[in-house]
């Protein structure tokens, strides 16, 4: 009989595997992942399945869906293939989603980390700025930014990032405020680690998981924002985007509803997939006893 505590327990399965197991338990999250993979595949395969320019005339204008093999989902007012538009639109939506999210999180992390780590007047100043951004209705700010920079897809993406960083900044700040007082930070500081390294090497990796989960929310919102802009004719017409398709399809909503309804449903499903994946990640990251 020994009470010694020095034997090691068997090595545990890697975090990723544990995480996946937990994730897998949530059926809705699996559905979301499936949808997400479909969207991803659409984006990747766009050039293969429907080669050529999605903005080129592909058939007689306003062909309804399921009439021709050339244009399985029909064509719009200028004879553009809706199917090709959906596939290439997945690219734009994912691109906008990912890039805008990166912008938002990058800004949010820097501001939140500095505010949360240093506190005091740095925190006060940065939080006042954050509050200012939060107070202005984000969509109005977005419209203003787009009015200034024009509707190039790059600028739209940056603008969406700029109006979305406050929530991650607050989250990072909250995480930093709780983490900076944790003993492991003191331990590292006690070893002589510098502030910069404390922020980025010690605290940030621990503060990131909830932010990464939240990224799915920003991504979903980005796609919605892009489509709302396009709806108001402020999208970038040089690319096939779902929002543009709805915006233009709206004119023929009554006669040829499929022009707007098909991309509309695709947006709903895509955003839904992000949300479901996000919820799944969240649940897997904070497992509850129940279930």
């Amino acid at each position: 009989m020994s009470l010694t505590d020095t034997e090691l327990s068997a090595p545990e399965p890697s975090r990723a595997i544990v995480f996946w197991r937990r994730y897998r338990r949530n059926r809705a999250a699996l559905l979301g992942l499936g949808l997400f993979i479909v969207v991803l595949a659409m984006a990747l395969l766009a050039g293969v399945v429907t080669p050529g320019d999605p903005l080129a005339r592909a058939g007689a204008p306003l062909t309804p869906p399921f009439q021709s093999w050339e244009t399985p989902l029909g064509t719009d007012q200028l004879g553009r293939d809706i199917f090709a538009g959906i596939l290439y639109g997945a690219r734009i939506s994912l691109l906008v989603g990912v890039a805008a999210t990166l912008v938002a999180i990058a800004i949010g992390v820097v501001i939140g980390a500095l505010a949360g780590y240093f506190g005091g007047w740095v925190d006060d100043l940065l939080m006042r700025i954050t509050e200012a951004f939060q107070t202005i209705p984000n969509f109005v700010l977005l419209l203003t930014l787009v009015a200034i920079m024009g509707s190039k897809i790059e600028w739209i993406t940056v603008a969406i990032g700029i109006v979305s960083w406050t929530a991650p900044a607050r989250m990072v700040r909250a995480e930093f405020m709780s983490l900076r007082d944790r003993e492991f930070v003191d331990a590292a500081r006690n070893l002589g680690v510098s502030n910069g390294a404390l922020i980025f090497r010690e605290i940030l990796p621990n503060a990131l998981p909830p932010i990464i989960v939240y990224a799915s929310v920003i991504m979903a919102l980005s796609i919605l924002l892009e489509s709302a802009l396009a709806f108001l004719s402020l999208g970038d017409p040089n690319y096939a985007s779902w929002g543009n398709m709805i915006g233009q399809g709206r004119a023929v909503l009554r006669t040829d509803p499929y022009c707007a309804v098909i991309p509309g449903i695709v947006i709903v499903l895509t955003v839904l997939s992000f949300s479901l994946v996000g919820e799944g990640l969240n649940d897997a990251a904070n497992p509850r006893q129940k279930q």
Partner: protein
Amino acid sequence: MKLGLPPLLIYALRRLAQAVPVIILIMIGTFLLLKLAPGDTVDALVGDMGGADAQFIARLRAEYGLDQPVYVQLWVYMTKLATFDFGWSFVYEQPVATVLWDRLGVTLLLMATSLSLAFTVGIALGAIAARRAYSATDNVISTLGLVFYATPSFFLSLMMMLVFSVKLGWLPVGGIKTIAGFYTGWDHVLDVARHLIMPTAALSLIYLSFYLRLMRASVMEVADLDYVRTARAKGASESRLMIHHIMRNALLPVVTLLGLQFSTVLGGSVVVETIFTLPGLGQLAYQSVIQRDMNTLMGIIFLCSVIVVVVNFLTDLLYARLDSRIELK
């Protein structure tokens, strides 16, 4: 405290003192930002008129002070604002205060109804979902919430309009009241309510899911807490637990969101107001941006900031009311 003022007043004053720099920051930021945009009000006006000759354009620009350096314009604006003079809207040919005042009611009505609907229904559904976590009910509620959340508001609005106005003819297409209906009293209220049904539904369905999800998580968290176990150990029934011990505590984080959400909803109402032709601040803001109607947009932003500050103040009070740990003394 030393002044012997009531604590609530001191608190309000302190919040005001905190809000002022934020608002000043916002105003200066917005002003400079708008100045970066290509074109000005005169361009927009001339575009609207279908053109004008060159002297006319130059005259107008001088008239509106747009020929002066930006810092002068900013200074003029800010000193006026300090006396709560919002200036003149060159687009609406009215004092900005009048323009805003006309729109404020509709927006507040729309936001208040959609937020309160989203809030009450959201927390109710969230609580139900949490109590039946991982059951079929929960799945249906949660998924529906997500679907609404995933639906772009314009898409939802168009679809509703198509179904309820055009196909079924139950609800008016847009506007805030039946024009030339001349309803008074209850008829008027009813008429406005009919016009608000679809926009309110469109806005609230989206925000509902926020509250729903937060409430669900919050209830599930609180339900695991020690004091709930204590109450259960006292022999309290499930409904009693829910009403007396879980709900109030679970509401706290949701109430915080209520305050934060306000300005987002105003942004979201841009699209909804545009589609349903509601004469509110959201649509006005959009118009002001594309018309470069500086004074009006600045006025909206100012008003919005004030509303957000007030709403946050009220939610803080509500929070303090709900959370006994926080005292205003």
